[in-house]
């Protein structure tokens, strides 16, 4: 555990000293502020559209941070040859993978705190209320979804040669799941065999990231809170997928020649 935490700490320091998060955050803030200043048709309900767009921007920015940061971890270590002195220490490859995952996931968590705090301040400035528990539920499942994305990117970084290809593939998969994931069962019903079985197989195999994505509606439409037992159920479901991707990453990395 000590080794995993040490590696996670280094990932946090790296992200703190690199500038990418700050650029994305400032960009997101500027776009949201510009949108927040718009008053269309004097519609007092325009805040709902503002919230929807802001949350979409937050999701896109957080996915970019999660995927690009994680996709670069192992390949950058190999390319810069920092992997060799690291693996020459009493550190297993599994610990390295878990440390990288934990570091990247924690960075995502910190980014989400910044994003949601800013979003909350922006929304509160218009609505004069702050439904904290709604934000907590949405942010928590958002963070769990990013955990799945980080684990998937980490596996991709060991399978694909270039971080750019890994990032593109991961981003495409995430976008496809969020946009089409919930419709796959309906698509399957409209097909004949073997297409139906294939699409059903995909439907049950993929991590349904559209569930946390849909939690935005809690904030946008001021829906009542979801019972916490269902939130924890969704969280355990996502943790299951994290475990699957991480186990696959450990298996792939174990046999890889690093020099």
């Amino acid at each position, binding site marked *: 555990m000590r080794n995993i935490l040490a590696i996670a700490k280094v990932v946090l320091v790296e992200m703190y000293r690199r500038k990418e998060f700050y650029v994305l955050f400032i960009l997101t803030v500027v776009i949201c502020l510009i949108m927040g200043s718009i008053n269309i048709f004097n519609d007092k309900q325009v805040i709902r559209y503002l919230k929807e767009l802001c949350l979409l921007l937050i999701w896109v920015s957080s996915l970019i941070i999660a995927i690009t940061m994680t996709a670069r971890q192992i390949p950058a270590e190999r390319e810069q040859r920092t992997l060799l*002195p690291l693996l*020459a*220490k*009493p*550190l297993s490859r599994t*610990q390295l993978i878990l440390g990288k995952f934990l570091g990247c996931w924690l960075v995502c968590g910190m980014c989400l705190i910044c994003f949601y705090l800013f979003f909350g301040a922006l929304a509160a400035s218009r609505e004069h209320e702050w439904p904290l528990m709604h934000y907590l539920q949405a942010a928590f499942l958002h963070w769990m979804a990013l955990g799945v994305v980080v684990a998937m990117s980490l596996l991709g970084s060991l399978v694909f040669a270039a971080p750019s290809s890994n990032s593109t593939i991961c981003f495409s998969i995430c976008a496809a799941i969020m946009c089409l994931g919930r419709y796959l069962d309906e698509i399957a019903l409209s097909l004949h065999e073997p297409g139906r079985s294939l699409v059903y197989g995909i439907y049950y195999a993929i991590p349904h990231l559209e569930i946390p994505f849909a939690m935005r509606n809690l904030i946008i439409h001021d829906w009542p809170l979801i019972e916490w037992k269902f939130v924890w159920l969704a969280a355990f479901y996502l943790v299951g997928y994290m475990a699957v991707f991480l186990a696959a990453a450990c298996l792939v990395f174990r046999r890889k020649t*690093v020099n």
Partner: protein
Amino acid sequence: MSVILKTEKLRVEFKNRELGQMTKVALQGLDLEVSAGEVFGFLGPNGAGKTTTINVLLGFVQPTSGNASLFGIDVRQPIARRRIGYLPELTYYYKFLTAEELLRFYAEIFGLRRAEADKRIDEALKLVELDSARKRLIKTYSKGMQQRVGLAQALINNPDLLILDEPTSGLDPLGRMKVRSIIQRLKNEGKTVFFSSHELGEVETVCDRVAIVADGNLKAAGSVHAIMQGHPTLEKAFLSIVGCQN
């Protein structure tokens, strides 16, 4: 004296995935033993298998067959690396960390307590003369300074076995002298040093025993004096053993 580094019939093959290309055999049944307290030179021409041997000892590469152990522990176990320090040929470290942060990170991995880590970091940085630059980011360091950071990280856990891959490669004469003096100091402390090098003059000066490999095979092993029997210099003995005539 106890054997702390051992390979038995070590064979490493790299399969070439391109069609029609043969499998490359990097090591063909290497048998090697290094005893505690000696400075051991591992010599060979380019492509002989020196770095592959070191890669197997450190767990970077899985052997095709045969065994390798450090302190009696199979090299595939991470715990086998608890008492070793390693300096790679090309030294690159996290550019976004300072030297002190890097050493503290490695000290954590070795499980050193805070107080002991602080002491070891101070000692290592003083030894490699980087104490004044400890708070600077590594990306601001010159090549020589990065090499010295490499040496510092190899010594952070006060290792019983130091594995150095071409330690004087790219260093100026002052840097080479510094590395030689560190190796001599470690030897006086009873540590074991295993290093590969092309600088035969240095090997002749500091090593107790040497092994010469070529084409993945062990050609000769023994004391420097025994290897040099009948030859005026280690270089001439080396050329004779690997089959090159003047």
